């Protein structure tokens, strides 16, 4: 009796716990948008610097039909995915090497961590000169920024493998190779994937940033085009779209990560 009473109540609480924060953050966004709208409409905010949210949303359609925002998205996506793929080809073996050869690990992990924190985007003029204003430069920057977290997290993940699991392997008389493929690799997958997720996000961000800086490629170029056209609502619309895409990326990757690391 008591249980049946409590259940719907608990379900409500659960629903609130799940939807409450989302609704709350959505409301805050709507509220901030409303304030911005009022500020621009009343002339307090200069419309040549800030676009009214309503105008921004309306230019989104124009961006798709006239300025090929959809194609730009696919171009950036293709670059980010190929950059991440290459970052994995470099980062995974590099992470393993730093794990396997302790001297190398001790010597270079600090460097990698420092590079992870550095604004590597500033290197772009160098590649612009060497490679030119083409996909080579954008993808190279994506690969460099992406492979650092992949290598760091892979190395960390291999170090973190439970010594007890390794003992289980030893107790079953596994060879070094069997221990690697049957225990170390599967145990390291969830943490290494965190590095791959970060690598993908980093290369995406850097590729878009460089597209903007060199006015070339996909999404970043659209922002830069709008900027040079003094199309302020269009520019904000493109930025808004990029934020949406990033959120989508993040959500999907988090889902995959949760699936890899059941608690």
């Amino acid at each position, binding site marked *: 009796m008591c249980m049946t009473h409590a259940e719907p109540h608990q379900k409500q609480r659960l629903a609130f716990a799940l939807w409450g924060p989302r609704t709350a953050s959505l409301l805050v966004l709507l509220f901030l948008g409303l304030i911005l709208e009022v500020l621009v409409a009343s002339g307090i905010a200069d419309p040549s610097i800030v676009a009214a949210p309503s105008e921004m949303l309306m230019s989104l359609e124009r961006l798709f039909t006239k300025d090929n925002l959809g194609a730009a998205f696919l171009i950036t996506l293709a670059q980010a995915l190929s950059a991440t793929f290459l970052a994995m080809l470099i980062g995974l073996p590099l992470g393993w090497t730093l794990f396997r050869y302790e001297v190398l690990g001790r010597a270079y992990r600090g460097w990698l961590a420092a590079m992870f924190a550095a604004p590597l985007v500033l290197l772009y003029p160098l590649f612009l000169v060497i490679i030119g204003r083409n996909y080579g430069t954008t993808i190279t920057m994506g690969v460099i920024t992406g492979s650092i977290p992949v290598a760091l997290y892979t190395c960390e993940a291999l170090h973190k493998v*439970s010594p*007890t*699991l390794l003992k289980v392997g030893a*107790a*079953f008389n596994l060879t070094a190779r069997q221990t690697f493929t049957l225990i170390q690799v599967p145990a390291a997958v969830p943490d290494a994937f965190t590095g791959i997720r970060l690598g993908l996000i980093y290369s995406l961000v850097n590729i878009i940033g460089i597209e903007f800086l060199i006015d070339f490629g996909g999404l970043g170029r659209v922002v830069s085009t709008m900027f040079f056209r003094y199309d302020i609502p269009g520019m904000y619309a493109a930025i808004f779209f990029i934020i949406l895409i990033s959120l989508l990326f993040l959500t999907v990757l988090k889902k995959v990560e949760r699936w890899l690391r059941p*608690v």
Partner: protein
Amino acid sequence: MTATLEVRNVSKTFESDNGDRIQALAPANLGVKQGEFLSIIGPSGCGKSTLFNIIGGMIPPDSGEVIVNGVSVSGPHKDIGMVFQEESTFPWRTVLDNVAFSLEVAGMEKKERLEKARHFVELVGLTGFEHHFPHQLSGGMRQRTAIARTLASEPRILLMDEPFGALDEQTRLLLGDKLLKICDALKQTTMLITHNITEAVQLSDRVAVMSYRPGTIMRTIDIELPRPRDSELISTDKFAGYVGRIWEDLRMEADRGMKAAGEA
């Protein structure tokens, strides 16, 4: 074919990073006969896991030797199966795939190994949970998965380090019953490490009592209770007598352990 185990003058001293030396094992001597169930009991921190790891070939002893079937060994031995004190199931494998692990390594065909693994899953009472992952199980069920995984490799000598350490008393007794049945069926030589006196008496042919650090075997006590046994045994006077005797031996050592911990 015999499966005997002998520990001769095995000692071990650990050195910590700041240079402190901890003598975990004073020279310890011990023999386990073919088909015998021997328990090692001792206060926490007396070097039980250290002894376990040395016998299993996980760490080398400073002195002395481990003799399996009359031959001195160093490193892991194919006749020895180990169940560890810490969490040791593979979280990325289901119960069935965990249990089939050693068979898979040995190259057994999939159908055959799963069939065999199912048998051991049943033996530890996990039927119905074959396709669960470890995180979907209770601690006791995970430990039983680990036991089944080791049993599936059919070791002639089974070493277990407090496999029921983290369990409540009721579950521990029931699992003890299961283990008794399994050992009666498989008849392997078994060494169980525990700090639970009831468990030691319930399961063993012989109980070895260890002293506090540096650990050494103080005394071994033959448990002359009829087999097959089950947990009903624990309400008998004879059982209580054994528990009392072992507790007497242990009390002093446990006391020393507490005092040492207090000073540290």
